[in-house]
């Protein structure tokens, strides 16, 4: 029974509503029977009391004057009244009681249901003494009570009626409860059938069958649940299709990136490599006139390779395919390396490069290659967009919320960026405006890639700029926590391995 209660909603509802119905029905039945019984008892008592009072009134005179024959007459008449079992009239002033019993016996009935009512017969009220009795020495006017009327009133009829009512009421209550249970069972089964078919449908969906739909039997709560479930299954099916497509697209993108990475870089590397080789051969053989052309080929190839790398990097970043390889390294070393790399570009635009590194911002645990790539992009841009100015790189440590960060600030005295363009600066393929692209070239992916890389490392890039006065690009990277067994990696060895492509 307990298992059924735990595992079956039908059983629980039936048991609880059955218990409630039983309590209500039997409570009401008991209340009705109690009221009925009480009313019946009151009726009997009233009738018996009324009859006893009547007999007392009738007997008063006979007891007053001591008329036994009249008492007997009264008793005889009383015993013939319906339900009177016995009558006993006792004269208080003497004489044996007058006793009449319905069946002629001389004793109280036994084994029968009856009530006994006694009523005192009082002498009539008398006027206050006046005349001869006022002030007289006469003794008081006798006892107040003339006698007693005792009446045995049969309650057999009422008892039988009471039993009949009790049995019939209880039987009706049981019948009602049985009918109610039957009706409720049928109704609950009807209500729960849609839930059961929904449960079956849910099992099929869980097993992967999204083709079917649960039947909506009625537009009630269960029907609305079924409709909602059907909609959910439809969306689940669509989502699964989209997911498959997305996975397929993602797989295709990964294959494309891998393929394009190889297919684009390979010929470019060949172009760059062969141009270098031919320059060396020409130099060895003293062939003049080709060095400039070969140099151009090599530079163009390098630029194209850089552009291809940028596009591939961006695609990887978009696809979430960039993996980071955190390691502990010294920031000032990387900064110096970047400065050395962009020195020719800075010299080309007659810019002065300065570095200012705070001693507490020396070490960081992050992806060295990506850190350098982002920094190189910022410093290159600064040098590119500044002429006859200054590009300074400052490294410091700061607290950004709960994290300690290294702040690398690349400040230039270049053209500056208008405010309306600053918001679009980190969007892919956006450089400022069309004139910037024509004048300075580039794909517009550098800052977008740099920001993605910084965010991957847990940091970010922000800019402050004023047209005509220059810009300040700030790169914040969390200092990071090296794993317990982490070793310091030397900058030169790790960067060579990472640049392999």
């Amino acid at each position, binding site marked *: 029974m307990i298992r059924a209660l735990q595992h079956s909603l039908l059983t629980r509802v039936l048991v609880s509503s059955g218990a409630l119905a039983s309590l209500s029905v039997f409570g009401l039945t008991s209340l009705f029977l109690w009221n009925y019984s009480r009313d019946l008892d009151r009726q009997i008592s009233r009738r018996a009391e009324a009859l006893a009072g009547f007999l007392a009134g009738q007997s008063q005179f006979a007891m*007053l004057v001591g008329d036994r024959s009249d008492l007997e007459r009264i008793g005889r008449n009383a015993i013939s009244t319906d339900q009177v079992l016995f009558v006993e009239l006792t004269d208080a002033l003497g004489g044996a009681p007058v006793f009449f019993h319905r069946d002629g016996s001389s004793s109280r009935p036994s084994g029968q249901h009856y009530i006994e009512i006694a009523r005192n017969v009082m*002498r*009539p009220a*008398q*006027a206050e003494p006046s005349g*001869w009795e006022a002030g007289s020495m*006469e003794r008081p*006017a006798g006892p107040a009570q003339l006698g007693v009327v005792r009446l045995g009133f049969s309650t057999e009829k009422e008892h039988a009626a009471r039993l009949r009512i009790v049995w019939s009421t209880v039987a009706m209550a049981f019948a009602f409860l049985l009918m109610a249970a039957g009706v409720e069972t049928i109704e609950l089964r009807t209500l729960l059938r849609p839930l059961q078919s929904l449960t079956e449908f849910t099992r099929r969906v869980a097993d992967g069958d999204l083709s079917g739909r649960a039947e909506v039997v009625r537009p009630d709560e269960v029907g609305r649940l079924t409709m909602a479930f059907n909609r959910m299954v439809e969306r689940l099916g669509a989502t699964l299709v989209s997911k498959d497509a997305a996975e397929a697209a993602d797989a295709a993108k990964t294959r494309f990136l891998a393929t394009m990475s190889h297919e684009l870089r390979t010929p470019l590397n060949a172009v760059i490599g062969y141009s270098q080789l031919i320059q060396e051969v020409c130099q060895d053989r003293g062939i003049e006139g080709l060095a400039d052309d070969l140099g151009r080929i090599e530079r163009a190839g390098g630029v194209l390779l850089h552009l291809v790398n940028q596009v591939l990097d961006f695609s990887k970043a978009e696809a979430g395919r960039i993996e980071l390889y955190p390691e502990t390294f010294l920031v000032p070393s990387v900064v110096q390396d970047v400065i050395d790399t962009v020195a020719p570009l800075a010299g080309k635009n007659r810019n002065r490069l300065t570095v200012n590194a705070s001693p507490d911002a020396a070490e960081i645990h992050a992806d060295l290659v990506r850190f350098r790539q982002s920094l190189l992009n910022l410093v290159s841009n600064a040098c590119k967009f500044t002429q006859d100015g200054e590009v300074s790189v400052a490294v410091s440590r700061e607290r950004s919320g709960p994290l300690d960060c290294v702040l690398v600030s690349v400040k230039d005295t270049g053209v500056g960026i208008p405010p309306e363009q600053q918001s679009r600066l980190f969007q892919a393929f956006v450089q400022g405006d069309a004139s910037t692209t024509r004048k300075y070239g580039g794909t517009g992916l550098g800052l977008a890639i740099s920001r993605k890389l910084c965010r991957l490392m847990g940091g970010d890039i922000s800019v402050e700029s004023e047209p005509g006065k220059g810009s300040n690009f700030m790169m914040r990277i969390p200092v990071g926590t090296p794993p317990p067994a982490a070793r310091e990696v030397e900058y030169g060895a790790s960067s060579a391995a990472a640049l392999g492509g």
Partner: protein
Amino acid sequence: MGITSLLARLWLAAVSLPTAHAAIVVLYEPGVDAYSEAFEGLCAGLGGNAVRVVDLRQGEPTLTRALSAKDTQLIVAVGSRALAEVQSHKVSAPVVGTMVLHGREMEESGHVDLEVPLSMQCGAMRALWPQHARVGIIRNPARSRYSAEALESRARKEGFTSLVVDCDGPGGLLKAVAALKGKVDFLLCFPDPDLYNAVTIKPLVMASLESRLPIIGFSPAFVRAGAAAGIYPDYRDTGRQTAEMVLRILHGDDRAADEGPRKIQVAVNQRITRLLGVEFQTASLPVEVLR
């Protein structure tokens, strides 16, 4: 039916003569104790005279035959009903009514009535309840042979003050009692079937108790019914008195005699007197105390 009645029946059986030899016809209604006592006294007084007893219940033919028999010398009617029956027949023999309330004028008839003279009643009350001399009387003008003034005068002669209230029917009885309440010591009732009967006796006794006004009745039955006391004729002696009248008439004397009772009896209802708080002096009189 009491023992008196039984003895009367036995006596009847003993003295009754066959129709052909009867001389004195006694019209008699058995079943009434007072009549039985009177009949006893009558028969005892008549001695060896031939008596034919006719039961009133026997029906008209028997009655007529008995009353018109040639050998009937005298008819004695015991009770008012018997007297009325005789009066309704044409009879030639003299009639004596006994145990009647008051006699009716009838030619050549005498009667012994039940009305105890007021003087005898006052005398009995003086002995029974000394120091209480205020008497109330309810008088039925239709039946009473005395006026109110006459009754008051008679009471005064006996040393009693009286208050007489007229009441011409049972409807005014309780009102009459209420009028006497507090003004008299006791209520004296004279025989009157209109005023005092099985219907009126109960409310009268209740009023008597509520008003604390003792009733002095005129028969033992009245006393048993609730009167505090009763003063009534000695029925047996009335019968003897009737027998003496019969013998006188048979001997040619005094045919239209009108007599009242010579001897009285007194009864006291002890239960009622206790309820009223009254103490009668029963030692000074031959009083029958009913408990």
